[in-house]
């Protein structure tokens, strides 16, 4: 064997170990992600599976745990039929959708306008006001629920749709998110638009907004999910059962005395989750990008 072929072989050896290390690293990452994913997905899948079983099956299958606790051996759609024909659950879903859409539209409008003002306009105490605004993010709804209720009452809005989302129109997280996004737009681009004859409002709509679309998508998704999952406030402010949202309706299923509703409960939980999953998948591309870029200068 000549010297050169020796070194060649040695190099190949090095190459092979490096490749094996990379392979192992990748394998480990995938495994870890799979485990985490499974932990998160399991309860949802279990609920979805259970929604295809009759209430009796669910109750008897819970103890002791066995194969049939998880897999519907006698799959049935009776829960869904009951849910949508007897309980009129579509009504609640629609209410949730109305609340979520209201929340999203109001939050998008206020967050983008306020975020733009904090990013681009100069006014006295701008940064102080912004700081105070961020502080309100740390006040939980529970802490202000009584005064909030009284204010809604005063406006005569109790048990109306707007009451579900109006109190959360000004959203510190959304404003922060949009402000960061607007700050990342080069100032020169807006100056060019000014010279081109655009008014501030025109610049906002034609130049600034289109360039923060990923962040807007993030905002839409976050607000939608937040509103979709809201429970306490709707429970308090919505006293008209016809306008009640799905989450509260689901909770009510649990509290009917002497009549177990586990089957419809799981069906409702599944029905309420599906739209979120779809929305997340559709917006995922923007969602990740929006969150990642919002931190960078």
């Amino acid at each position, binding site marked *: 064997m000549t010297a050169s072929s020796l070194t060649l072989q040695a190099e190949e050896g090095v190459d092979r170990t490096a490749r094996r290390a990379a392979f192992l690293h990748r394998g480990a990452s995938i495994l870890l992600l799979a485990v985490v994913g499974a932990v998160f997905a399991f309860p949802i899948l279990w609920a979805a599976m259970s929604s295809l079983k009759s209430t009796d099956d669910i109750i008897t299958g819970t103890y002791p745990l066995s194969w049939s606790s998880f897999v519907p051996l006698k799959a049935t759609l009776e829960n869904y039929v009951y849910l949508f024909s007897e309980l009129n659950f579509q009504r609640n879903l629609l209410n949730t959708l109305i609340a979520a859409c209201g929340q999203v539209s109001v939050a998008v409008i206020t967050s983008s306008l306020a975020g733009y003002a904090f990013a681009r306009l100069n006014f006295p105490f701008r940064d102080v006001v912004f700081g105070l605004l961020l502080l309100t993010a740390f006040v939980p709804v529970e802490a202000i629920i009584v005064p909030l209720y009284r204010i809604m009452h005063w406006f005569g809005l109790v048990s109306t749709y707007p009451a579900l989302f109006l109190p959360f129109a000004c959203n510190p997280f959304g404003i922060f998110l949009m402000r960061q996004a607007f700050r990342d737009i*080069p100032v*020169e*681009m807006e*100056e*060019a*638009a*000014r*010279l*081109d*004859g*655009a008014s501030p409002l*025109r610049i906002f709509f*034609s*130049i600034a907004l*289109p*360039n923060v679309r990923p962040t807007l998508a993030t905002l839409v998704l976050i607000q939608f999910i937040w509103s979709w999952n809201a429970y306490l406030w709707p429970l308090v402010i919505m006293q008209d059962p016809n306008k009640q949202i799905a989450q509260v309706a689901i909770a009510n299923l649990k509290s009917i005395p002497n009549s177990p509703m586990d089957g419809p409960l799981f069906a409702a939980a599944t029905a309420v989750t599906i739209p979120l999953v779809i929305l997340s998948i559709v917006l995922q591309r923007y969602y990740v990008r929006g969150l990642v870029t919002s931190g960078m200068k």
Partner: protein
Amino acid sequence: MAQIDIRDVRKSYGTTAVLHGVSIDIPDGEFVILVGPSGCGKSTLLRMIAGLETVTDGDIQIGSRVVNHVAPKDRDVAMVFQSYALYPHMTVYDNMAFSLQLARIPKADIDTRIRNAAEMLSLTALLQRYPRQLSGGQRQRVAMGRAIVRNPQVFLFDEPLSNLDAKLRVQMRTEIKALHQRLKTTTVYVTHDQIEAMTMADRIVVMHDGIVEQIGTPLDLYDRPVNLFVAGFIGSPAMNFLSGRIAADGSKTFITDDGYKLPLKNIPADGAGRQAIYGIRPEHFVLGGANAVPLTVEVIEPTGSETQVFAKLGDNNVVGVFRERIDVRPGQTISVIPDLDHVHLFDADTGARLVARKEALAA
């Protein structure tokens, strides 16, 4: 089209004064270049003309009206930014159409104007592309197209070529110049590249620390810099400066601090015996001859067309540029004399140009 009058304009940010009284008259149709080192206030002045910065004091007049308090969009100026500042979410066509749509110009007119501009800038094939799909040079052209379609009274450029590679820069230089010759729109152009300034400008404004050092045609500045700053700033390689004094006996001689004698063509009025700075450009040394001074060569850089020699005259660093091919090695000496017609003298204290009697008469 319009002339621009800048009268004693000042600018401060809070207590920091950036421009200390700048006056420039720009006749209609002229191509004026602002040059100066980084931070001297070129962009600030340009942005004040555009209306993007307020005027602290003084007047800026475009055409027949003072525009100090006129909004940018009503000044009828178009600006090309260093970063181009294209709208990333619009096609090339829409980038150019934006201002025209805002001005409510009929669609057909907009289309004609854009096609004409695109033709002029070889952008026709790219009109439906987005900025991210263009090369640096093409983006630069779109930025110019956006300015041209508006047919403004004034073009403003802020270092438009500094993001391009050297070759493209030279090409765009020519194109911008040609464009100006065609459109004859009054233009203010900022750069810190003095070659760009020399090759493109009708007149150059040399700025330094917020004041105007000199305004003149490129050759004016090259031949008759009014002070040491301009003399050192214009020309590449830079002018050589030797400190010393004019001979006291009235002979036309300059004596450097370390005793070398250099010839003068004329002596400035009451110049005899005076402390001064002797300025001579690298290309104005002549090889050999009587009364030559010895340069000790340190580095030689032949470029083919000429040879640059970095050398020492006594304690002073001196650069010479020669058309001839000279055959020396580092450490050897060459004898040179300054070309008498191209010697500059500056006051040792103020740095102001000392006018020779003859020059003063000619002026």
